[in-house]
């Protein structure tokens, strides 16, 4: 019986200490130290409207945009329902999807093989990045649609290409949303 009382008391104390005190402390400190990041690295346009988050990808289908990877989150890049496709390597659904996507993409740029990330969904379904190869693959199409030179476009892409963190960690990647926003901005000028 004593165990029961002790258990209840400890659960109560820990709920207050760890379940309320600790997250509030972290939130307080985070809001002071890194307010932007703590709130989701949000991006607003000139009008102050929220257009997305640096860290969350969006679907792009237009010719003039760099396309993100396929997404399995909701109806695509649903940031309130993150999810991978969870299709296994021998899944007919997966293979059909990859085949269809590959065919479409190949028709845009027949000279190159389709980079793998453009036909595969990410784990979160919200991957904000594509590989530099995937960006390069799309340059032909985007340059044509926007009527800008491939060289200029490459420069802009390079601006939004991040290398390995500290030169070691992760893989090089291009932020699709930031890149597309920049392209829109350039076009508007």
């Amino acid at each position: 019986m004593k165990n029961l009382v002790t258990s209840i008391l400890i659960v109560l104390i820990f709920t207050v200490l760890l379940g309320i005190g600790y997250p509030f402390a972290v939130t307080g400190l985070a809001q002071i130290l890194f307010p932007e990041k703590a709130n989701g690295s949000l991006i607003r346009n000139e009008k102050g409207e929220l257009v997305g988050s640096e860290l969350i990808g969006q679907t792009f289908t237009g010719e003039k945009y760099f396309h993100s990877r396929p997404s399995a989150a909701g109806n695509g890049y649903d940031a309130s329902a993150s999810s991978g496709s969870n299709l296994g390597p021998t899944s007919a659904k997966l293979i059909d999807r990859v085949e269809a996507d590959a065919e479409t993409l190949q028709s845009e740029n027949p000279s190159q093989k389709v980079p793998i990330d453009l036909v595969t969904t990410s784990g979160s379904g919200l991957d904000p990045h594509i590989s530099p190869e995937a960006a390069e693959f799309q340059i032909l199409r985007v340059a044509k649609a926007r009527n800008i030179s491939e060289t200029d476009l490459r420069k802009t892409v390079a601006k939004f290409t991040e290398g390995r963190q500290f030169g070691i960690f992760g893989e090089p990647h291009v932020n699709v949303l930031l890149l597309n926003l920049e392209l829109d901005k350039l076009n508007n000028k």
Partner: protein
Amino acid sequence: MNTFGWLQIVIYLVVLGLLTKPVGIYLTKVYGGEKTFLDFIMRPVENLIYKLTGVDAKAEMNWKTYGIAMLFFSLVSSLAVYAIQRLQGFLPLNPQDFSAPSEHLSFNTAVSFVTNTNWQSYGGEATMSYFTQMSALTVQNFVSAAVGMSLAIAFIRGIARFETQNLGNFWVDLVRGTLYVLLPLSLIFALFFVSQGVVQNFKAYDTANLVEAQTIEKDGEKQIVETQTIAQGATASQLSIKMLGTNGGGFFNANSAHPFENPTPFSNFIQMLLILIIPAGFTCTLGRMTRSQGHGWAVFGAMMILLIVGIVIAAQAESSANPLYPAAVNQSVGNMEGKETRFGIANSVLFAAVTTGASCGAVNAMHDSFTPIGGMVPLVNILLGEVIFGGVGAGMYGILIFIILTVFIAGLMVGRTPEYLGKKIEAYDVQMAMLYALIFPLIILGLTAVSVMMPETGLNSLYNQGAHGLSEILYAFTSATGNNGSAFAGLNANTVWYNSALGFAMLFGRFFMIIPVLAIAGNLAQKKYVPPSTGTFPVNTPLFTVLLIGIIIIVGALTFFPVLSLGGIVEHLQMLDGKTF
């Protein structure tokens, strides 16, 4: 995989190795009741807790008392988590107005977090309010880890002590582990994660206007989507303890693949490190507390080798092309389905091996979409008994069971009745160790077999068919029983059968296995000292390391080889053969 991939893996392993000793020494101090540099702040808190709860910090417990206290605490914890979920609608910090999860989901989740499994039949951002995440789930992230650590320490005490009943005081171990180890580290790393971009707020979800509105087809009708709802929440504070306590329950559905839960490669690196530092540190603690540092390192070696083997196999598998993909796809990178661009293959397989070697279960890539062999690595890691460093504490007591079996089988070969660190291993110890070794496959194989025999309740939940489908169910029960929590997530586990069956698998996989563990600890503590000599089976040599690995693999692999051959192995061969399902 490229050189950078291997380099990152090597750096990870080296840093982990370097951290093992300092962490181990610190753990020894904390559980030895010694002075630490945090005493100035934590001592008063600790004493206050004892005062409020009436715990006599000096009283020692025997294995039964220790176990009963642990069981009571876990029971009350489960009820609290269940209650908070069911009352979610009436509780504050619920900006999305989520209603209470169903009874079976609440049961599953309560059990899941109390057993340190953190299996999730739900998607966090669509189900749980901030209050539930904090006051129920985060709290259990701390204490279920602290319970595991307490049990490991009690077991080590059983080995280190002689002719006594005393294994320490559960309440003290629980409180000290939480206050001196988990809380301070979590606080620091939570802030670090925010610095990398992890969110930490209590806002309602944001709505962004899409840069390019999209037309989608839904239920046969075309719809135009112009906005994106961005889930928010107090993620960082839950994230650091999720990794450190090898809990693994994601704040978001996509877990550590979600950019808000793991924004950068460096945050990813630190997350992987947090998973293993305490389990690795425990090997050093084992060595120190039993005054046999060499043994601690031999155990560390066995765990490390198993981890590396898994990483290498998975890395090879995931770097290779899927022969079923059309030729137009450039697969030189490897299998990117279910993986994030910023992490690439190396960080995804490393994370998968680490999270399943330890019973963490957080994921930064979808195991379900791994290649057959690549996906078998996390599965086998769990099937080996969660001892590749294992969960905080759980990995330590798990490997101690394997050590007892190793010492018993191989120990005879030196011509003495088996002994381990100055204790004779006798019938009772073997009996309990075998019980432990038996419960694990019993739950996994039994429930998986029952599930595949039920076309409606069992197989309707399958998302993938063929051999991969078998792996999905097997993985679910393996993950639950091994208290891991990762999944072949295609399986729809949010059904009455799976929520209940997996819930029981988690309960049995935790508590039925803890009881023999404590019984052995109690029995060992009573034993007389048998001094080691050159005639004694040495437990601090590379040969011992090899033997231990052999026993772990034999007990694990021999039991599960048949089902694996119908799962991943046959799927791999079918994939090479060009078959789809």
